[in-house]
């Protein structure tokens, strides 16, 4: 009935009305143009304000909601529970991750849904931090839903069409990883430490920490670190694009510092939730 398109048109037959006069920002700022403002008027080395809250989903064993600027993510953790029947015997626990996007996560409907690699990236980022020996023969499921992708929406509507490369960007993955480790802690899954994740974009001579999608579309290189701040151990490091060694070292240090700070925020969120429970 009303739910189905009355014509035989497919989804492609509809389009978003776009403002044709909207200007795209000139590509990269040249040379030493440091006055360039980031779309959300942050400093180059300034992260978006981070917000975490546990217990977002009641029916899960543990869950967390994270909001970094416009990026909004919910992660639910189920288990440890029975592994799938077809699975082989394993004397350590299994971790199963899945990341999905809502159809309205990106400015154009339904474009954010094909991040198949996000699930395996999340799995690899968390695997090293979880003490899998504590739940033998069972599976812990970590499911993430990206409610909204970060980025300057008005701009992206136009750009997304033209830039296929945009989808190689790490996008919301750092937020998903950090949020997932808070959810795991909420579920009482044993971990060596929380996993905090931060990414850096390299634009010309400048390093931009915690980039939004718009910035990622201009980047020359991207670096993402997932690490355990109190142990000073890295669980995942992804580097793509063009990097010079000094730049790379600087970016690495920047990321580690930022994740130490992020780790503190995550910890204080968990402490707050625990002290609320005691009262």
């Amino acid at each position: 009935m009303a739910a189905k398109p009355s014509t035989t048109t497919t989804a492609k037959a509809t389009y978003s009305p776009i403002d044709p006069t909207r200007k795209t920002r000139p590509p990269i700022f040249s040379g030493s143009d440091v006055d360039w403002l980031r779309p959300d008027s942050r400093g180059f080395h300034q992260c978006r304000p981070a917000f975490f809250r546990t217990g977002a989903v009641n029916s899960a064993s543990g869950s967390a909601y994270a909001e970094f600027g416009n990026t909004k993510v919910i992660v639910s953790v189920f288990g440890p529970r029975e592994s799938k029947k077809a699975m082989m015997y394993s004397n350590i626990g299994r971790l199963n991750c899945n990341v999905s996007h809502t159809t309205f996560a990106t400015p154009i409907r339904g474009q954010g849904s094909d991040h198949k690699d996000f699930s395996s990236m999340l799995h690899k980022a968390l695997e090293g931090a979880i003490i899998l020996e504590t739940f033998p023969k069972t599976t812990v499921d970590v499911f993430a839903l990206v409610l909204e992708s970060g980025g300057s929406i008005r701009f992206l509507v136009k750009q997304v069409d033209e830039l296929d490369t945009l989808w190689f960007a790490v996008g919301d993955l750092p937020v998903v990883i950090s949020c997932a480790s808070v959810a795991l802690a909420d579920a009482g899954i044993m971990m060596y430490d929380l996993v905090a994740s931060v990414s850096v974009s390299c634009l010309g001579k400048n390093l931009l920490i915690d980039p939004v999608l718009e910035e990622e579309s201009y980047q020359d290189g991207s670096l993402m670190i997932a690490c355990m701040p109190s142990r000073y151990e890295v669980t995942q490091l992804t580097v793509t694009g063009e990097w010079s060694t000094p730049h790379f070292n600087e970016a690495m240090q920047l990321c580690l510092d930022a994740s130490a700070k992020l780790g503190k925020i995550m910890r204080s969120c968990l402490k707050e939730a625990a002290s609320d429970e005691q009262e």
Partner: protein
Amino acid sequence: MGLPNASEDLSSEMEVDAFRRLFPLRYFERHLAESIRPDARPLSRARDTTISMGAVASADGSALAKIGSTTMLAAIKMEVMTPSLESPDEGCVSIDFHMPPICSPLVRPGRPAEAAPVVAKQLSDTISRHELSLVGGKAAWMVYLDIYCLDADGALFDAALLSAVAAFSNLQIPTVSLDDGKIVMLPEEQKEENSEKEPVNKEKRKLTLGGIPFSLTCILHKNYILADPTSEEESIMETLVTVVLDSSNQLVSLYKPGGAVLAYTSAVQDCIALTRQRVKELHQILEEAISGMEID
């Protein structure tokens, strides 16, 4: 009370939680006999309900509805389509109901939840087509309504419908104009000035729902009627009745998808009476959510 003595005796010895898990039906029946439910609600009371508007910045209209811990996020995106030859002046509403794996331990990725298509069908039957034409025969609105279940704890249809009607009342249709046969969005700054491009839809910035539909799901068990069940109650007592009334108390639809309990007319009438009360509550909650938006 008609309960076998064995379980009576057991219940006095056993811990409450163990009894709840081992004999869920007895556990509930003992509560029902006292006219109360395990979460301390009277039988006919719905859970606390909240609506917050404009939860999704990237959508044209959105709302988050919570009934107890059941949470639904609805977002509307407007796109332009060419209407069909048979109905050149009509747009289209496409409704998708999603249950991502985060919402419930029963949903696994790759396998869609059983409940999802049922709820989607009910929703599309309830929300009817609207006047959505832009340029007769050339362009009309295609309304994509996506509802995501973020937390599933019973009465999914009620929460989904509530979030949907709230999202519709939050909807701001973008001002557009015609440019080379294509519909384009009018930039913000040109709206006041008398530009060469005339907006096609100057007046129609809001969708008007005729009568706003509200619903209440009840469980029938023996002679008891339980309004607004949780997922635990739904899993134990399986006969559901969903009544949809619009804001002027006219019956929109009534579902009783089978179940072990056969409903007498009186039970159905009781359900409708309960729904009538609930519609008043929901209407007020929605009004408050809308007026809360306007103050901001």
